[in-house]
């Protein structure tokens, strides 16, 4: 029984953490442009020398 007192809060806490992480990722617009993100990795950084 004492094990449960630790394990259940930990399980719930981790679940909540995942939920919050998902909310944050949605709010910061990470799902707004899925196709664009796939293309953006092909872009060079702006600091590089242009030719």
């Amino acid at each position: 029984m004492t094990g449960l007192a630790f394990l259940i809060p930990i399980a719930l806490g981790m679940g909540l953490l995942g939920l919050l992480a998902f909310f944050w990722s949605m709010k910061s617009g990470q799902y707004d442009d899925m196709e664009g993100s796939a293309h953006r990795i092909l872009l060079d950084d702006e600091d590089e020398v242009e030719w």
Partner: protein
Amino acid sequence: MNAPALPLAENDAGETIGVSTRFTVPGMKCAGCIGKIERELPKITGIEAARVNFSAKRVAIQHDPGLDEDDLSQALLSIGFEAQRVSDNPMGTENAERRKLVRALAVAGFGMMNIMLLSVSVWSGAEGATRELFHWLSALIAMPVIAYSGRPFFESAWMALKFRRTNMDVPISIGVILATALSLYETITGGAHAYFESAVMLLFFLLAGRALDAVMRDRTRDGIGALLGRMGKSASVIGPDGATRRVDADELEPGMLVLVAAGEAFAADGEIEDGASAIDNSMLTGESQPEAVKPRDTIHAGAINLTAPIRVRLTRTAQDTAIAEIARLMDEAGQSRSSYVRIADRASRAYAPAVHTLAALAFVGWMIAGAGVHQSLVIAIAVLIITCPCAMGLAVPTAQVVASGALLKRGLLVKDGSALERLAEVDVALFDKTGTLTIGEPRPVLGELDYEARSVALGLAQHSRHPLSQGLAAGLREAGVEPALVENVSEEAGRGVQGVWNGQPAALERPADGAAELATQLRIGTRAQTIAFTDQLRPDAAETLERLSGQGIASQILSGDREHAVQDLASQLGIRAQSEAKPAEKLETLEDFKTKGQRPLMIGDGLNDGPALAAAHASIAPGTASDASQQAADAVFIGRGLRPVALAVDVARQTMAVVRQNFAFAIGYNVLAVPLALFGYVTPLIAAIAMSLSSLIVVANSLRLAGAAGKETSA
């Protein structure tokens, strides 16, 4: 002032000095385009930052308030992208609804997993204090989760009940609330069974269905704004003293005399007082050919003056113009469609009363049989839980999402689920002519030309950017012609292209007789030949019509084009035709079909088809159609072939077949499960298993549609 080029959040325009304007840029194709727009635009004075959304093909530009829409679209054009301003509202509200659903789905998922964890322990035989503790914990998690995730259903059910109607959400809400209340009572009194996980799982599955539906509806229709955007925004009014001044379109008044320069769009309807020119009237008539106009002819707002400046006496302005009339027709026509009842709601109208009667009968039956109030109530609620339309909530959206994904791969974009339902029901197809049955680009008729002439024609045509020359060059290249070497080629606007071939003068010029048909004259030395142009039929048009008739759909042409051109095509394809139809007349034809009880499918591209597209039971537009038409249509197809139209109807019907199978599964499951519930054998464990199993079967059945569009072509 020099704000760092942070990614622009969509709604925080107020936080920086600049304002944010959004444009749609259809020409974005690759990573290079993203880089080019985001890097080059901020180099222009006044533009602070640009952020591309590639999926939506949109650019948000943060800029100085001093720059207006025209400056910005000019800036985009200067780096090679055509752009159009998008209004801010419609997209925002749609997104908000989807976000709300996804958030609710995430919370329900979190709750479901944790409660299930506790429930599995209870089912595995946790007893006494442990079971009570787990029930209390489940209650603590379930209450806020249900309150949050259930809101979309509770709100919708409340709205329906307030207007004395019922929808799918009414039985869902009643089931969830009663299950929660019963479980809470059991928890407080230390009972053996709590149904928290069933309630939350139900919400999770149903929210998954709703979220899928919302994703499909992502693209909104705001056709009206796009339509009026084509009108000229201002005009040069000639005062009594002969001086001109610019006047905004909505301040123009009938009776004013305006000067319309070549290349300018008309801002109001009027009558030509002085000057002759050619106008591009394709927006209203859908006809590709420039129309010659002379004094006393009527012209309409939205047409473009092509060749020479003319003076026009205005007759109708602002909201009275023909194009504003089309916008109004489209708006009204669209209203009738919104009254269409989705299949899920139709099903629930029959389903909800049946289920509620059954639960009530179970309660009364057990009371009569001598069970206590508590036991009778538990059984009645178990009936409600087990019959909650979990699989039903998934039956429609899963099938529709899978089908629309399959269609997208075949070049057809379906706007929403209701479009698929309506497409499956059509029984007569109405085609516009120009740009729909035909490709909408002029192609030469090469029959009478010998190889030498063809070769010289190509040698000349490839030097010109005139649409006819380009059509001629494309047609000749397709016929496998090699260009002849023509020297000293020069082009004179309005006259043609000329050069020297083998020492003789050669030219492509305007035909001498000035015939009404599209044509050009090829002159080599002293020999002159006329090359006529036609608007070519789409390669698989006949095949598509045949397939449609194989599906029991009669086809008909409904065009604004001239009588004989339409009749030629109709007899070639062997179908009936109605020609010279104005937008309002097209609408009338559709209404006639509807009053006869038929369900017309409209396929058209021009702005003149807009009202008909909005009013038809279902509608499809080619990807080359005007923006307003694409937005009014239920589906858009790309490519040169007409095949996707037949495919759309076919897949839509298959989808409805799968939806009906899904309903049959859901009902079959109820037939098995309800007796168990009625006799009091349903425990939370059985409810959970039954619910997941029926949902899985429905999803698996829907996935069969993934191959629907592909299989169909090989057959």
